[in-house]
């Protein structure tokens, strides 16, 4: 009877106009290969964020969808918000 715990990229979703990426990291506890529990941890990524430390699968998705056009569009959008120095 061996208990193991591993993390998995459970879900990668691309949403919205600016191709934001939702990443779900699953922590799975298994006993002899049979899953006992699964916990979720989330983070989200916008096209102007650093993905250097992301999972390779996440990087692949981000690089695929974050075209320069998307990045430029997000920058234009954020600039229009004046860096949120005023409420929106």
């Amino acid at each position, binding site marked *: 009877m061996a208990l193991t715990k591993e993390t998995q990229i459970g879900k990668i979703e691309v949403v919205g106009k600016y191709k934001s990426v*939702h990443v779900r990291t699953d922590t799975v506890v298994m006993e002899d290969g049979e899953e006992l529990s699964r*916990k*979720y941890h989330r983070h*989200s990524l916008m096209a102007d964020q650093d993905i250097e430390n992301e999972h390779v699968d996440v990087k692949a998705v981000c690089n695929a969808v974050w075209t320069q056009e998307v990045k430029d569009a997000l920058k234009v959008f*954020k600039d229009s918000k004046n860096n*949120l120095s005023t409420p*929106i």
Partner: protein
Amino acid sequence: MSSILKVDTIQDQNGNLIISKDSGGSGFLSPYASSSAAITYTVTVASKTTAHPYYGVGSSNGYFINGIESPIIEIKGNDTSKPYHYKFDQSDSSNSGHPLLFYNNVGKTTGFSTGVTTNGTPGQAGAYTMIAVDSQTPNILYYQCSSHANMGNHTFATSPVVNTGVFLTLPTADGSSGQVVTTNGSGVLSFANGSVPDDAITLAKMAPGTDGNIISYDASGNPVAVATGSAGQVLTSAGAGAPPTFAAAGVAGISSSANATAITIDSDEKVGILNTTPGSFASSGNDLVVGSTTGSHGITIVTQDNDTGSLQFADGTSGNAAYQGRIRYNHSESAMSFHVNNGSEKMRIESDGAVLVGTTTDGDAGAGDLVVNGGVFLGGSAAANELDDYEVGTFTPTFVNQSGGEASNYTNNSTGSYIKIGKMVYANVSWNMGTISTGPGSLYAGIGGFPFVSDVSAGGCPWYTNIDVPDGPATFQISNNYNYGIFYSQRDNNNYNTISPGAIASNDNFQITFVYKTD
């Protein structure tokens, strides 16, 4: 030079007639004895003498033919179109009361009238009985008085019609080899294939056999005995070339001990099991009807304890067509699954009672749980009725201080948790700033690391007021298309300021719960 002896009668030394001119003799018979030129015998009646074959029997009187006491009379004739006529003249008064007729036997059981004519009254002038002799005249006819017994004798003719007590007409043509003589029931015999009339053979006429055996025929058509089978067996065809044999009753492969109707197949080939009227049920599902309206009934599919049992729906015989739809129980998993559209599993009931829809992974689900890998539509089937997600998890809040970027000059002990219901995210942050090693940066203070990017365009940006940050009540706003929120000092809609990053110092703690929509 030849000589001819002409005599009318030849008698033996005792005076008995051997041959007479009047009898036709055994030689030539000419001229043709037509009805108008018949060979005529004079008949008289007188007391019998011992010369009479029936002396002392029957009447004491006898017929005398041309003065001869009741002789055997040879008559001749063959061609039915040219019969020879023999007239027995009974004009003599001694014939009164003694009409001469012809019979099958001396006892006069059956009269013979074919070709026989009578005229006048015996004993009176012109009285006679005449017979036309041809091939249909019996070889033996008894001439007798119709009123008295044993007065005459019999005629003799060479004829295919024999008198054996009954008149039998022999066949006029030969039959085929092996044929037998048969009768038409009226004494006419002919050759025919041998046959036995219906009901003509009785069991008593059959040869004894072996107890229980029955008779069949081999490939050559010869009778053979079929050996006795076991009790309850039935006779079963072995096909051409072999006699039948006894075998287990019923259809091969079907065992039945039923003592009442268990299976009914009606005229439309609808099958009922414990139901005698399968065709009376809805035609969409009456090909096989199980059970009745009395008591409980059911169908059981039995398999090995580590295998599967299935109820399958096919529209073809190969590939997925053979099981487009399927209900299957997996005994090794103790799970029931439902398959549709090319047999793809779409729903499962796990051994612990968890119900899985659209997935085969039960994860943490257990008894009573419902796992739906898709949306749940409540109150309607429009997209607006769909609840397509529910998720509970954690996230790591980050300190945002510069243009939304994540600050890197601090330690963070903060934790975040979320509940996502459909597109709504319920987030809670327990902020616990560690140590800010260098200046906290500029522009504003905020919390990032959201689990989902906001999509709040439709409903406006949520504001959360009276957030108890160390520098006093603040407003927390989540903007559209961001994954972080910003603190503002709270005054009113037209008077606001961002909170300086420096407002959140090392070791500051606060709680904030907020709700926003994501895409």
